[in-house]
């Protein structure tokens, strides 16, 4: 198992005089090596908070992580990680090449940057941007340069928060193609998306979160036993069942 998350809890205080709101209520899941896991949930269900806890941006009130069966520390885990946030904002005045060099150096530097940069920029179809600054990039281009950054070090685990949001059909097709390629390379993929059709197409495992609780974790075939049922329909049914307090997984 590449990653195990146990009992994550997190509360936020909107301000000093309001009571804390529990956003994560014992979130726990596993990411098997080489799997492609889709993280599904409506806005505010706790997807991004879970990812931020996992990446160390937010400190959970309770819970723990186990990286590579406890063989890796958090720092070692980050060495083999590629991440793309939900709204990728970058340092405006850099060019795509400078931006990639910055991330290359932060991850330890070393030889082979020129070759790898060329590969990833070609992969995301940005090989010809030249001296154009990131602030002049469109939303789709930023998303793609963010993806190039995530792929830069040939990561073992790729965590993507809404990788397809804001992309035009061509861009989405490109990203899906890259994800398929990474999957075939054996990279473990973990991503959240509202576009369930993409999840249906790409993921072999699903993780469903609602109000800070995991409602389902397992193979997609188990979540959606009848192949003719759309993922969206099953997801709505599961949520409705949860709201009625009648259980979780179908």
């Amino acid at each position, binding site marked *: 198992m590449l990653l195990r998350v146990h009992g994550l809890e997190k509360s936020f205080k909107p301000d000093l005089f309001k009571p804390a709101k529990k956003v994560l209520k014992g979130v726990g899941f596993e990411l098997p090596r080489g799997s492609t896991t889709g993280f599904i949930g409506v806005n505010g269900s706790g997807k991004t908070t879970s990812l931020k806890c996992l990446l160390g*941006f937010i400190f959970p009130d309770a819970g723990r992580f186990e990286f590579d069966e406890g063989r890796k520390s958090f*720092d070692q885990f980050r060495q083999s990680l590629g991440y793309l946030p939900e709204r990728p904002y970058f340092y405006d*005045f850099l060019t795509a090449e400078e931006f990639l060099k910055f*991330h290359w150096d*932060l991850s330890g530097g070393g030889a082979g940057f020129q070759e790898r940069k060329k590969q990833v920029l070609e992969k995301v179809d940005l090989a010809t941007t030249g001296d154009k600054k990131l602030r002049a990039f469109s939303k789709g281009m930023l998303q793609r340069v963010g993806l190039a950054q995530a792929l830069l070090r040939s990561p073992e685990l790729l965590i993507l928060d809404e990788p397809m949001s804001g992309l035009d059909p061509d861009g989405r097709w490109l990203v899906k193609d890259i994800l398929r390629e990474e999957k075939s390379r054996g990279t473990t993929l973990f991503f959240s998306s509202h576009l369930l059709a993409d999840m249906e197409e790409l993921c072999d495992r699903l993780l469903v979160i609602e109000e800070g609780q995991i409602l389902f974790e397992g193979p997609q075939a188990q979540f959606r036993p009848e192949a003719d049922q759309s993922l969206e329909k099953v997801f709505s049914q599961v949520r409705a069942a949860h709201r009625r307090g009648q259980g979780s997984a179908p």
Partner: protein
Amino acid sequence: MSRVWVLARLTCVELIRNRFVVVLGFVAALLLILSSFLGTLSLDEQTRLLVHLGFASFQLTLVGLALFLGSWMLQTEIERQTCLLVLSRPVSRWEFLLGKWAGALALIAFFWVVCGLLHLTLLGFQFPVGRYLQAHITLLLESMTVLSLAVFFASFLRPLLALAASFAFLLAGHWREDLRFFAKRSRSVFFEQAADVSAWIFPPFDRLEIRSVHYLSGSEAVFPAWSVTHLLFWSTLLLFLAGLVWRKRDLV
């Protein structure tokens, strides 16, 4: 350490390309030229005016730069979420903070060097360079301490509050002796003791005020080495405290 260097370099380059910093540099140059012009209006005090107004304009620019950069730097990173990608790499929060701080300091130092060279040229190298450097270095030290102060406050306060708190410390640091003087006049033991304690708590910026013709001409005035050490200690301590807070801050 190399990651701190990478972050510092990027911070500095980003800041140099920022329009606000360019404008500030322009203002500093303008103030200096203005002080040179004002000097020509006075008959015997040309040098004195150029020295005093020159140093005052540098102080305004460099300390202002330190205040604004220190107060907004971290919050901008959080608001724009640019720090998330950086921290998803094997970069510790300490390295991130140090890198940002060092990058901002490098920019201030760049301005400091340019201002110094320009000032010395306008003064026609009539004072010993060593003596000038001693006076000029106090500006860099003051800016560095103010930057650390602002970074410390910004690690747990909103930028405007951090700016206000740092500015208050800057003023209190300059008015330590005045506070003591007024406390003595009040004849209250409590106020006197409070002023004595505050003289230790606030950074001794007042001791650095050696930027005068009197000092530059090599009179018996001595370089305030003890106050410099005190301020270096202050900077280190503030940065360390900022790191402790930043290390545990949720980036939401």
